[in-house]
């Protein structure tokens, strides 16, 4: 019986739930004995020139071994994203200028961790404050420059060379345009950032919390100015990343540099308050959508104009508008599509990937535009969507955004959620509540989405080895941090080898053991790394058959592999894989390259109740189809959907990183940054649908980010729908009680005029 598609319980959990995971800061590796503890003095100002740094008092404080300023660090300021303006480099410790609250300025090294903060408080840094730049439109004026050498706040752009077509909407009877904000979010992983390093025999060993150890190694080596071979990265358990832990952070290189500088191992982990300004954040786009069509409901043209926030130092976020543009038209067959994006630096925490990374921004924009268009022509938003969907027979379909969609059944997905929700009954209930003028009104929001998974990194390595004791080791270049690869990859090997999961160990995250790999991000793991493991195990079976053929004096074609044993079909004659491993290693190293990304899709329907007196919205139901092709393990796939949906609902209702006009973060604690608990979320209704891709032999697509892409616009739309009869057409996310109440009031004033 095949193990594929079965509900195998996560093999990693007994340890996590009993002894607990071993995170970077929990390590007791003997190489770290006697380590110094790093405490960073961070900038309290958003934008300022450093005029002086006084460290003598701190150097004399108890337990202090070294206090290092930016002037002493000999690593060259680094361009953290290759495509950014070359002048937008970040120092590892700021020496001349700080550009966001939380930027590291001085490093304090103490014998004990608790001594660090006392000493850090004695460091005196004098600043000459400069005006903060928070708003993207203000950044675009270049009135206040973050990098004088750059002469501009524009880091990079997409589609900026050509002018927009002034005739794009000429054929349209109806054109609607609107500015919408896709707000800044904090990844808020449970494990904050951490790194430890030691320098011995001309080589750095760096333990760090990352989603991509191999690229972390290469980045850190580049910043240190050494060869990648001189850096050995080891990734212990990682307590969540959501995109914010892709690759390395500059602090990691600083930890390694300090280890060499002091000749002692160095440990660092940040507090939650530091994490809320120091770790990269996500989203933060100011979008202008324009949509046009006819009164029958055909959408004929769509334009998306994006100002994307890079934060103070451009990082991965600077490239994400590429995905936003590529996915701009979503699931719709729109004749004319235009988009462009300008990426701007602001005096804020850097922007990088956050679950969805560029695609939720695209989906939120087009889905909002569809609603606005439907409202303008007075048609049901579901009907308008259905009318414009790309049809199954049109696949493979290349959009006007340039995306080569592999497979899709968009109308089916939509119908499934409508049926499960009882859409006509919900509309009837909504109508009745409106007629009765009830305080708690009903809102229904629908999104149909398509996204891109495995975009960018198509190739992945895997190795499978059977040992003489009958155990199996799987090596993978993916880097799980909650996804369950230890379970899933073992299932893939077991399927071919017929060896039980208890005998299979999945290893990852040690760059000496697995030198090549792209890590876990962009929902890429199964469709690249998983397929590679599956392929490696299959190849191992073939190798075993060849070896056994000699041994058993049989034709390889007459051999079967089952239960970890090669046998001659129809006879008792056979040899176990373990026995074959005795004479020479039974190992296969392989690589799988899909050469292309996948385009999973789905539909979400949210039912929201809004108290129109207080403005508070509560999600009552959410019903989703997240079609990522065949499901390897429903337990894991549902877990991914749950987490994503929770984060999607949360972006729509609760979360936002806020700065005041001076660039002070106002949401740097968990009291102010409103991520959700179970109490804010309903039970989710997950519907099944599996449309395979042809991009890889398993037919699988990625599922990790579906929830943040589909749920967010559905919930936002539902909140607006609940108060649309009061004249409200749009509310920016998060649709907080204050925002909803304000929108209702504004609509009432407008209505009275």
């Amino acid at each position, binding site marked *: 019986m095949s193990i594929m598609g079965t509900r195998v319980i996560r093999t990693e959990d007994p340890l996590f739930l009993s002894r607990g995971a071993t995170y970077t800061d929990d390590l007791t590796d003997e190489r770290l004995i006697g380590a110094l503890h790093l405490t960073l003095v961070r900038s309290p100002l958003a934008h300022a020139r450093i005029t002086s740094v006084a460290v003598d008092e701190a150097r004399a404080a108890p337990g202090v071994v070294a206090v290092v300023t930016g002037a002493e660090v000999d690593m060259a300021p680094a361009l953290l994203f290759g495509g950014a303006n070359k002048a937008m480099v970040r120092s590892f410790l700021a020496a001349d200028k700080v550009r966001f609250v939380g930027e590291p300025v001085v490093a304090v090294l103490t014998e004990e*961790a*608790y001594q*660090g*903060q*006392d000493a850090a*408080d004695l460091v005196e840094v004098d600043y000459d404050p400069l005006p903060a730049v928070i708003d993207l439109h203000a950044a675009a004026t270049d009135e206040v420059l973050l990098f004088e050498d750059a002469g501009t706040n524009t880091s990079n752009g997409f589609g900026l060379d050509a002018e927009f077509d002034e005739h794009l909407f000429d054929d349209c009877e109806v054109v609607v345009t609107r500015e919408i904000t896709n707000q800044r979010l904090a990844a808020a992983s449970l494990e904050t950032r951490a790194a430890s390093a030691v320098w011995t025999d001309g080589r750095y060993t760096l333990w760090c919390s990352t989603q991509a150890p191999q690229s972390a190694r290469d980045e850190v080596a580049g910043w240190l100015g050494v060869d990648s071979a001189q850096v050995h990265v080891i990734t212990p358990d990682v307590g969540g990343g959501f995109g914010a832990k892709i690759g390395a952070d500059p602090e990691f290189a600083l930890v390694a540099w300090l280890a060499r500088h002091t000749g002692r191992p160095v440990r660092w982990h940040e*507090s*939650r*308050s530091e994490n809320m300004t120091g770790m990269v954040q996500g989203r933060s786009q100011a979008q202008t959508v324009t949509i046009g069509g006819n009164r029958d409901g055909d959408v004929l043209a769509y334009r998306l104009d994006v100002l994307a926030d890079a934060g103070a130092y451009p990082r991965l976020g600077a490239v994400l508008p590429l995905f936003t543009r590529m996915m701009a038209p979503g699931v719709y067959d729109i004749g004319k599509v235009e988009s462009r994006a300008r990426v701007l630096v602001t005096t804020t925490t850097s922007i990088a990937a956050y679950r969805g990374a560029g695609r939720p921004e695209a989906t939120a924009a087009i889905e909002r535009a569809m609603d606005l268009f439907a409202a303008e022509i007075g048609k049901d938003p579901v009907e308008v969507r259905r009318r414009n969907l790309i049809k199954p027979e049109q696949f493979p379909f290349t959009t006007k955004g340039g995306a080569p969609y592999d497979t899709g059944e968009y109308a089916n997905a939509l119908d499934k959620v409508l049926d499960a929700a009882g859409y006509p009954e919900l509309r009837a209930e909504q109508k009745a509540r409106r007629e009765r003028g009830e305080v708690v009104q009903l809102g229904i929001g629908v999104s149909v989405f398509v996204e891109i998974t495995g975009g960018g990194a198509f190739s992945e390595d895997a190795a499978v080895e059977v040992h003489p004791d009958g155990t199996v080791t799987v090596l993978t270049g993916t880097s799980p941090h909650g996804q369950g690869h230890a379970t899933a990859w073992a299932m893939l090997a077991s399927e071919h080898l017929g060896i039980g999961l208890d005998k299979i160990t999945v290893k990852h995250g040690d760059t000496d053991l697995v030198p090549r790999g792209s890590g876990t991000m962009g929902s890429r793991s199964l469709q690249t790394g998983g397929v590679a493991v599956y392929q490696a195990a299959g190849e191992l079976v073939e190798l075993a058959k060849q070896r056994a053929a000699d041994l058993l004096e049989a034709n390889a074609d007459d051999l079967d592999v089952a239960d970890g044993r090669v046998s001659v079909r129809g006879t008792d004659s056979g040899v176990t894989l373990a026995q074959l491993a005795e004479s020479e290693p039974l190992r296969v190293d392989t690589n799988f390259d899909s050469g292309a990304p996948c385009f999973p899709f789905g539909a979400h329907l949210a039912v929201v109740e809004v108290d129109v*007196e*207080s403005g*508070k919205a509560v999600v009552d139901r959410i019903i989703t189809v997240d079609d990522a092709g065949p499901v390897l393990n429903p337990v894991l796939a549902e877990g991914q959907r749950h987490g994503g949906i929770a984060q999607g609902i949360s972006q729509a209702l*609760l979360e936002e990183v*806020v700065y005041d006009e001076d660039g002070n973060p*106002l*949401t740097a604690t968990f*009291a*102010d940054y*409103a991520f*959700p*608990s179970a*109490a*804010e979320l309903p039970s989710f209704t997950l519907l099944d649908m599996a449309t395979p891709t042809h991009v890889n032999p398993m037919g699988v697509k990625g599922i990790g980010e579906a929830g943040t892409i589909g749920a967010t616009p559905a919930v936002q739309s539902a909140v607006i729908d609940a108060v649309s009869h009061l004249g409200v057409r749009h509310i920016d996310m998060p649709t*907080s*009680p*204050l925002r909803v*109440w*304000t929108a209702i009031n504004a609509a009432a004033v407008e209505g009275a005029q």
Partner: protein
Amino acid sequence: MIPVGFEYVRPDSVDGALALLAEHGEDATILAGGHSILPVMKLRLAAPELVIDIGRLAELNYVRVDGDGDDSWVAIGAGTRHRTVESSDVVAAEVPLLAAVARTVGDPQIRHRGTLGGSLAHADPASDLPAAVLALGGTVVLRSPRGERSVPITGFYTGVFSSVKEPDELIVEVRVPRTGAGSGWAYEKFTRRANDWAIVAVAVVDGRVGMVNMGPTPLRASATEAALAEGASIADAAALADQGTDPTGDLTATKEYRRHLARVLTKRALTTAAGA
């Protein structure tokens, strides 16, 4: 998140705690449940030299009815945890409002640590229990080596995080009138998330209205109370709830929105209380 170094003592009696307070004055702080003071210390917004832990003093942990007949009240030791207030049979029978309010504080972990005395002493205008005690017309009992005094809650608070409590005084007890289980009461707490602090909250009991976060201290909705006494309808009386208030604006609410919420929540609380 590491506080400045401090000395720590755990006296074994209230008298012991008072002696230490008298000796060290403003250099010392009381630690009860620690759920307000420890975060403040970890953020280094406070750096007391001496921390006096009263969290385990059994003599501050009780709920009982004191006094005789008409002149009786519910007395709650300052060290009584929110969880005890929430689940006490005496509170349920005598002042059900207080149990209901205690149940809305934070989450179970916080309610198992935080104390009634700590909550009142901390004087955060966003706290739930001070407004409930205000609506009930309770009394705070303070003790120092100089003696004991009872301060009506109406005269206890002087501003944000400040009260008439002297640095050498300990809150030892909180007294609230016995409203009985049949009283008309309600608590409307408005939050974004289940375990958040109130954006605004309104406590109603027997026609008295206490409000959370509508000014630097917990406030009574005097205009509403007066209108009710004169026989106004709930809707008319609730429309006056924000009169004389001075709420602040912050991330979650503007001043105007808080005023609006005070009116809406007062209407709801009065309606619930009338139906009870």
